[in-house]
């Protein structure tokens, strides 16, 4: 049984191939690009418009923004930025950071994630898409389930203390990188692409900050981060998408990437497998999104 997205992609393939051929013909004008050896000519038509890709991303940005804002300020995304018919947010509270600069690091990330929400909302407003608002978000039962899946015990609470909050952050950031990296080939507009590439970079800066800080937060934190990475890898199926914080030979990994030093990517479905905390196909909600994400793509 094919997933909805792959079917969509096949249905639109002829159109996209034609469009690509036309664009190539127009742009070519006797100076066609040379495709380097080893990469081949890959036409990967996108089944989604750029605003639809950004709409999917907005769900993830809401999740991150709610997490970091609640952890650093005790308040979530301002009412002015949650869109129409916003879903409820369960859980999340201000964390008592024992290291002042760690609190500052997390506040900086909170700010970036709120800016991403605001930027993506403006982008969607300017498109033909109708804004759907913040989806319902669970920051409580979801983390307990994720913690259990990773073997961190039945009561994992990322808002309990500084290290726990870093681990909750670790769960999100590498996923954000792989999600934007996977979306790069779905985006057709140059301006959209440049914006998405810029958010991708920011998520990777965050990912590195979290990895660096956890590596210096003791053995227990390092092992927990590795367990979370392994749990993510199990949820999203067999394709390689993960490197833990510390490898078996003791080396630390700052940039999870393949043998070519290229960051891993995830499909929309694989991202949903993680945030729904379900390895199954055709799942429409669960985990961090108890009612599912909003938009045309919401099934694993």
């Amino acid at each position, binding site marked *: 049984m094919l997933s909805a997205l792959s079917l969509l992609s096949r249905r639109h393939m002829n159109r996209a191939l034609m469009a690509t051929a036309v664009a190539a013909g127009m742009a070519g004008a006797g100076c066609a690009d040379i495709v*380097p050896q080893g990469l081949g000519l890959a036409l990967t038509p996108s089944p989604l418009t750029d605003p639809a890709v950004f709409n999917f991303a907005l769900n993830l940005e809401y999740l991150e923004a709610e997490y970091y804002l609640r952890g650093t300020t005790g308040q979530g995304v301002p009412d002015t930025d949650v869109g129409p018919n916003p879903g409820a947010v369960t859980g999340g509270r201000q964390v008592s950071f024992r290291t002042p600069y760690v609190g500052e690091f997390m506040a900086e990330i909170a700010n970036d994630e709120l800016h991403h929400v605001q930027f993506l909302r*403006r982008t969607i407003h300017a498109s033909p898409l109708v804004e759907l608002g913040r989806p319902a978000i669970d920051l409580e039962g979801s983390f307990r389930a994720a913690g259990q899946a990773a073997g961190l015990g039945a009561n994992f609470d990322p808002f309990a203390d500084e290290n726990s909050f870093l681990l909750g952050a670790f769960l999100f950031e590498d996923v954000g990188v792989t999600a934007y990296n996977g979306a790069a080939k779905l985006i057709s507009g140059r301006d959209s692409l440049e914006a998405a590439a810029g958010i991708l970079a920011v998520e*990777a800066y965050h990912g590195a900050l979290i990895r660096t800080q956890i590596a210096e937060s003791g053995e227990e934190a390092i092992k927990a981060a590795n367990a979370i990475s392994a749990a993510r890898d199990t949820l999203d199926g067999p394709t390689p998408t993960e490197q833990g914080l510390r490898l078996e030979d003791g*080396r630390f990994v700052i940039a999870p990437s*393949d043998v070519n030093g290229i960051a891993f990517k995830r499909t929309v479905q694989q991202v949903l497998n993680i945030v729904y905390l379900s390895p199954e196909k055709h799942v429409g909600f669960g985990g961090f999104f108890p009612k599912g994400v909003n938009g045309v793509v919401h099934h694993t």
Partner: protein
Amino acid sequence: MTTSQTIPSELQPTRRSMFSGHATAVAAAAGAALALGAALPNRARARPAGVNDQDILNFALNLEYLEGEFYLRAVTGQGLDQALGASLGGQVRGGRQVSFSNPIHRSFMDDVARNELAHVNFIRGALGGNAVTRPTLDFNAGFAAVAQAAGLGPNFDPFADEQSFFLAAFLFEDAGVTAYKGAAPLLRSRAILQAAAGIEAVEAYHAGCIRTVLYKMGGAARQGAAAISGVRDKLSGGEGNDQGLLRDGRANIVPANENGIAYSRTAQHVLNIVFANGAAGVTNGGFFPDGVNGKLQST
């Protein structure tokens, strides 16, 4: 459509629905693209005339040679030629093994070195016989010029100790992120674009680590980073596309604009930084005494 036999027949679109869907989908996509372009504050720059994907990849390869030699020498004491068992081109001046005081920091830099080596290998493999050779690299002259401009003193030695090395690495990594981000929208091949996005993310991971470590070192490390950030910005057009480790007295690990989006640089502005020369029309200097190889070689 060769894939149609794998689609269950009841789910296959009829010819009629495909055609009727076609026109509306194209119209909607066109409208969406127009509207979206208007909403985005930072418009992607146009691709320079006569420049193709291969030229852009070769430009990136010059920077990867620089980073690869820098990290490999610092972590292992040996360069790319030894790591790959081949002579890749021009001479490399300077660079030696660093004595790291923190084993976790050393391990992170070892990971960075492996990534940069992999980037050199990957891009050379992708370009095949069209890959440019390694240009002459000069870490002594490059860092001396930047250190002077940043006021780090006449004796700044990037390989002297851990803090000096992280400051030197700081010079490269944010620039690498802005270079790949600026190049991404110029690429035509989706496969190359995918690879470039994945390399950009890895450079941003590196930069995030280096900035976090420097911030935690405090005092002189933060001041040095601020000075280097200022030099980068000044060399590359003074457009405010750079940020140090502090903003309004608080930690600033991520250089990003008011939308939380990382900055871009053109190839010319990246060359301004590595040539340590803010003028236009310059073709060598700083880390590249004989210039870079390939079509994109002038500031």
